[in-house]
């Protein structure tokens, strides 16, 4: 649940979602659910030469299980907050 609440705080920001099939999509985070399914808006594919047909889709739903990485905006990462949250999670609290 840590990542779910963390991603919820990033709604409205620009993120890059890298899928397990190597496709990377950049867009504004519209929403995220408990399965870490991700909805992006105003998306564009990072490597457009490789995936020309994905050029621009207005909105995009990505299944949580196919996500490899989510690249976050540096200003959206509160390291102190993450530290505390991960410690608390590790203690099982």
């Amino acid at each position, binding site marked *: 649940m840590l990542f779910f609440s963390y991603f919820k705080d990033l709604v409205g920001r620009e993120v890059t979602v890298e*899928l397990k*099939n190597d*496709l990377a999509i950049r867009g504004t985070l519209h929403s995220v*659910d408990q*399965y870490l*399914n991700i*909805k992006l808006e105003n*998306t564009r594919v990072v490597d457009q030469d490789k995936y*020309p*047909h*994905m*050029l*621009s*889709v*207005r*909105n*995009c*739903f*990505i*299944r*949580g*299980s*196919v996500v490899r990485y989510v690249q976050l905006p540096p200003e959206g990462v509160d390291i102190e907050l993450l530290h505390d949250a*991960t410690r608390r999670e*590790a*203690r*099982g609290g």
Partner: protein
Amino acid sequence: MVLGVREIRCSGQPVLDSENREELMQVQPGIDIVLGNLPPESPGTLYITTKQVIWVSDVDKTGGYAVDFLSISLHAVSRDPEAYPVPCLYTQIDTEVADDDHSDSESNHIQQDLSNVTEMRLIPSDPSQLDTLFAIFCQCAELNPEPNDEEGEENDWVFSADQMVDEEAEDEGYISHNPANSIGHSNGNNDLARTILELQINDRRFEDAEEMEDNEDGTRH
């Protein structure tokens, strides 16, 4: 579970798996389907259920295609004519082609064609239906989380506090634990510790044997 697109036979409306509580969410007539790079097939009717998407041809009402929501990695509304000439719902399909058996698909040509399909486009005759379709696909995707999620977490690199206590007890005497570093501690380190231990045992045996030989040599001469 079968990943990817599969061909189905039915008579008119597809039969749902009501035993597993599969329910019809939406019926959308006037939908063309494009599988991968195959030519479009049209027209047809789309049946969206709580488990899968089924497209039945209007021409040949006994045939069509089905794909589970579990296999749909991504879906998006495509309106850019450069991406595709007509507005459509674009989907990416997860297949198991990369992993295993080509022998199976070789024996069945229909299966072979479909198992390579990693993209599916659904083209409504009325483009204004696209946003509704997108929303229903989102809704249904959320109804179908990964079935083995809990299992996966057990084997994951994230350990619970209980598991760590157990491991420390097991490893006691082999490696000294720094409690501050225990979060990053994984199975890999344990295996390494065991390997080193085994190596040391082997070394000692080897030394012993040499010593024995030396002694024997010594007594002989």
